[in-house]
């Protein structure tokens, strides 16, 4: 009974833990900058449809390539569309697709990795060989194949990105599981006759959760990079969806006359990627996980 009480006193609510992590993250300048950029982008993504001054797909030939003015803050593009409106809406597209993509990647990658780490043996060998094979196909070729296979709608892009970026999480989850699996509490759970499912849920997940979450946060920024590269190459979301990669590739040919149409989406995309990266870094440090020696695979 006494042991139980001590345990309960040390246990904090999830909310308290979360706010503690956020405070630790914000206590470093890089973490604070990253968090503020990310929060700014998320808020903007929620409110952008209500504050957008113009219609994002309104084409007006008389307003082609206007320089920034009081009416059109960031100027207009080659079809006379307002660049400011399209830039603030672009974050919505990128954040939605990559956020849900990362969730899918975390779920299947994490669970498969934990499962492989726990059961080991032949199944583990076969799955890891296949994951290695997928890792050795350059991401751009694999993504292009998937997208040309299934089309470029949002319903395809989210699971495709989620599937593709999850394979790296499998490795991390498996390695983290290997670290805890030899510990006494797992052995004793086995001895008590708990099922594999119960061991995964009650013993392993609480112990590998941090490592997997950090990996997922990092994947998020790479997925954003991959997604916008796809859009840039013309294999991502289709026009007239306001999307940064697409805007940059459209405006690129005319940037000697109209640099504003290319600068605005560049600032948007770069700041979001840097924001996510700094946040993920600070998150890893707050949880005491060192990622700096890992290769970007």
């Amino acid at each position, binding site marked *: 009974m006494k042991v139980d009480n001590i345990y309960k006193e040390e246990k904090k609510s999830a909310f308290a833990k979360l706010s503690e992590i956020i405070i630790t993250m914000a206590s470093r300048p890089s973490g604070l900058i990253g968090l503020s950029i990310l929060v700014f982008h998320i808020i903007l993504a929620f409110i952008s449809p209500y504050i957008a001054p113009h219609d994002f797909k309104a084409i007006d030939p008389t307003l082609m390539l206007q320089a920034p003015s009081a009416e059109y803050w960031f100027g207009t593009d080659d079809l006379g569309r307002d660049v400011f409106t399209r830039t603030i809406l672009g974050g919505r597209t990128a954040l939605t697709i990559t956020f849900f993509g990362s969730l899918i990647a975390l779920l299947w990658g994490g669970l498969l990795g934990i499962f492989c780490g726990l059961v080991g043996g032949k199944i583990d060998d076969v799955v*890891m*060989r*296949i994951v*290695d*094979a*997928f890792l*050795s*196909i*350059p*991401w*751009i*070729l694999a993504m*292009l*194949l998937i997208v*040309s*296979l299934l089309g470029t709608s949002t319903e395809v892009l989210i699971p495709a990105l989620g599937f593709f970026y999850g394979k790296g999480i499998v490795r991390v989850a498996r390695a983290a599981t290997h670290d805890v699996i030899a510990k006494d509490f797992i052995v004793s759970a086995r001895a008590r006759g708990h099922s594999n499912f119960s061991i995964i849920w009650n013993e392993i997940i609480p112990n590998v959760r941090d490592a997997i979450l950090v990996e997922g946060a990092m994947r998020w*920024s790479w997925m954003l*990079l991959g997604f*916008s*590269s796809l859009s*840039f*190459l013309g*294999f991502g979301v289709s026009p007239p969806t306001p999307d940064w*990669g697409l805007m*940059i*590739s459209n405006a*690129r040919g005319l*940037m*000697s006359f109209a*640099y504003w149409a*290319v600068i605005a989406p*560049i600032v948007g*995309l*770069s700041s979001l*990627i*840097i924001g996510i*990266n*700094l946040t993920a870094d600070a998150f890893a440090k707050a949880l005491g996980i*060192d990622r*700096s*020696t*890992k*290769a*970007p*695979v």
Partner: protein
Amino acid sequence: MLFLIIKRILLGFITLFIVSIITFVGTEVLPGDACTTYLERQAFGEQLEACYRRLGLNVPAYERYVSWALNAIQGDFGYSLSGEMPIKDVLGPRIKNSLVLASAAIFIGIPIALILGIITALWRDKLPDVAISTVTIFAMTIPEFISATLLILIIAIWLEWLPGIVIVPTDVSFLELLPNIILPVVAIAMIMTAHMARMVRSSVIQVMASEYVQMAILKGVPYWKMVFKHVLPNALLPAINVVALTIAWLLGGVVVTEVVFNYPGLGRLVIESISNRDLPTVQALAIILASIYVSINLLADLLTLMLNPRLKTLQIRK
């Protein structure tokens, strides 16, 4: 030792085998096959039959896979659809062009990364470290197509120092080609250098904190002698593997950079062949790119094994 090397090479081949199956199945389920794409409106009856026979699409898929794989091992990837040229003739000059770009970036990038990584580690948390680390974070997080576009906008359009896209044929003399490839090489080298510099930094920091380095300091070994004799050899060894992974990962970045600069390398071929549904070329590209990835990793593993006497007796990590 020999057994480990053989095992490592075998694992590499198994990986390539699985890659070949994945791409074969992947291209097999693409909607529309080579013949319907190639013949477009005339894709029926006699002509379609003739095309299937010519490309050998009338036999079952597994038979096609076996014959394709047997030929591919000998370097024969069949014919591309659009140009009706043997794929190996299409690939040859493209591989050469990409190799020029990638090796220039690697030769510039690795020394700079080493120097920056060592400086930031030795002056950890001081001004040089903070300044360089901030720059590397920017350089490694910004996508290649953005840094490439900004380079074109600033250097080629505003300052007019260098041409913004590669317009000369790539078989001109090196001196004529050089100004054309400076910007793409810088774009690729920048992100790669940033990644490697960060890894070298953390590797050096780890070794600096180890007990034998502390011991050397206590013994009164001169600082720079300690750095070059005790720290660097041990710090750079584990970095080899990570550098190899980074180079392999950047194959994707090379693709994007080539498209931005209109450079006729492997990367643009990837985009062109996928847009044209040129499936035989896509398969060949997947195998070639995967082989590059696998062999870079293999090379790094073997190099680590050879340079590190301790690993000779240990189990190599998969």
